[in-house]
């Protein structure tokens, strides 16, 4: 009766069945995701309405500051608020998932020290909340396109690719920070700062055409999020929105490389999480 559950525990021994274990625990992944979502707005007055209010408020502020005060221009033929909102939607998805992944191990520290399951489940399950928020923000965006009478482009069929790339990139950065966060709580302080600064380093409030022909263009394009945001915008707003298809190669390669390196680092360190938490 027992043979199918036979295991051997030894140093470095969890390696072999890791991915199988991950698959066997998929129900737990689902339940943890559901927990995070249902807990999100407990004991708030407005509840889920926050997911709607937040992007609208951020967009309003940004449109006011950048468009009316700083007078930043959008790409010709694209309404500035739509440009900001599309950029904001995908950036917020990245920022939320990145933050949540980075904190996922610490938040679940009570589980880490008391039960075994592949630790990768925690970062993976923490993505759910960000994704739900993303879907809501995306809905708001669609409503806005109707409001601004801007046609949705057929390019939208490529949208899933860019969502997947965002996911890969946030996992890449997030896993790395999640590991560091277990050892050094400094990381917890650093993350909100990175997210805040990061928003200005990527084309959320401005168009990437601004960087064209400058000395830093090379480095600017190395940031996988630049390609992702431009691409996401191109999918939704059509060919008038600036997007350099060439950047797709570097974006894809860089984000996958980061993800794989982080995954290796995570796998190497996860066994010792419990000793440092």
């Amino acid at each position, binding site marked *: *009766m027992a043979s199918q*559950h036979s*295991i051997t*525990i*030894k140093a470095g021994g969890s390696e072999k069945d890791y991915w199988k274990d991950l698959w066997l625990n998929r129900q737990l992944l689902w339940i943890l995701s559901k927990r995070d979502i249902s*807990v999100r707005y407990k004991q708030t007055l407005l509840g889920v309405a926050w997911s709607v209010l937040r992007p609208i408020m951020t967009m309003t502020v940004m449109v006011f500051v950048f468009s009316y005060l700083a007078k930043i221009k959008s790409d010709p033929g694209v309404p500035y608020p739509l440009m900001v909102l599309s950029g904001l939607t995908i950036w917020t998805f990245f920022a939320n998932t990145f933050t949540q992944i980075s904190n996922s191990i610490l938040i679940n520290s009570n589980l880490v020290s008391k039960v075994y399951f592949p630790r990768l489940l925690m970062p993976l399950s923490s993505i759910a909340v960000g994704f739900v928020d993303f879907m809501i923000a995306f809905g708001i965006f669609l409503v806005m396109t109707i409001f601004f009478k801007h046609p949705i482009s057929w390019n939208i069929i490529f949208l899933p690719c860019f969502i997947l790339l965002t996911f890969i990139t946030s996992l890449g950065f997030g896993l790395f920070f999640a590991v560091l966060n277990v050892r050094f709580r*400094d990381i917890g302080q650093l993350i909100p700062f990175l997210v805040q600064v990061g928003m200005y380093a990527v084309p959320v409030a401005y168009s990437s055409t601004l960087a064209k022909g400058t000395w830093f263009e090379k480095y600017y394009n190395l940031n996988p999020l630049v390609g992702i945001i431009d691409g996401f915008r191109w999918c939704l707003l059509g060919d008038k929105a600036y997007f350099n298809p060439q950047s797709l190669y570097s974006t894809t390669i860089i984000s996958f490389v980061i993800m794989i390196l982080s995954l290796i680092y995570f796998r190497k360190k996860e*066994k010792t999480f419990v000793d440092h938490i």
Partner: protein
Amino acid sequence: MPVIVAENISKKYIIDHQRKSGSPSLRDIVSEKVDKLFSRKQDNSDFAEKEEFWALRDVNFSIDQGDRIGIVGHNGAGKSTLLKILSRITEPTTGQIKIDGRIASLLEVGTGFHPELTGRENIFLNGAILGMAKSEIRQSFDAIVDFAGVEKFLDTPVKRYSSGMYVRLGFAIAAHLNPEILIVDEVLAVGDTEFQKKCLGKMRDVSESGRTLLFVSHNLTAIQALCNKSFYFEKGMLIDQGETTHIVTNYLSKVSHKSLEKHWDNIESAPGNDQVRVKRFKLFPEYQDDLNHIDVRTPINFQFEFWNLVEGASLNLSMHLYTFTGECIFNVGTQAETFSKGLVSGVCEIPGHFLNDGSYVVSMMIVKDTSTVLYNMEEALIFDIEDYRENVTWYGKWPGYIRPQLNFSIRQTEHVVND
């Protein structure tokens, strides 16, 4: 047929002494991090400040199917580390363990309970965390609710639960796991008597159905009632294993030789200040049997000696006795007396049949003019009182902090004559 075979299990921890010299700068962190990223070596001997600590050392054992193993030892003996390795929470540094069978470990009740979620939601959450499939949880849902007795509060967030309800629900879920091997760590320490009885009953069911049980507890009575074999750990080593009765006796005889005395011979380095300094604090048990261990029958005397450094000081002693969890059981004081310079000694007698079994902490205060605390020696002594019972067939944890023998009798006051 052995279901668990452990060979040469060791677990090393690195104690980091780096933080001693002030808090590290961001530069330290970064450079250390970079070193770690690029160095292949696991044991980096450059860090001389790091000290090794072996939580487990060369542990070998084999457990047969249906064995009920009790694990005894002091705090820090490696019991919990072993359970953590068996439940795959942490990996051994060396050695290997082969396990045949589905294993479930209960290192804590209600692991992963989310305070905001309702009892119902938490049953599914906790069940999934403990490794139950959704269908299994659904199947035993009613039994879990019934066992925990929380029907009325199923849709209340668990943060509104009383601690008793919380623990009951947590244990109820775990009790309905159907593992071939069950690992339980000290869960009986919580919950009321009624519930502890239920838990022990449930664990007995588990063991009687031919499944394997590993049980860590400081409650030796429970271990004796449940387990047929026991392991005795000391300082990370498995120093004895065998029949429970034999192990428990062996353990008890060693427990009582734990240092029950603290003393300082040098007046300069003794704890205290320029008015008083502590010389000695000692506990003398009047052992009731030749095993030399303190149990509920044993009268205990405390002797406390200190140097008085101020001529003509009016001093008295005040002693607090706490449970291990920090509740104060009593506070007694001596009369104040005037002392000249020199040694002062105080004695307190605690009669047998007074304290319940458990771990206790004594603190001693030296008070001047019955109002000013000159020196407070917190956690001055820590001692254990073991359980002892006669003519009782019930083995649950005896409730209460004290366990006095009072004049309490029953007699028949009327006979009903059947005609």
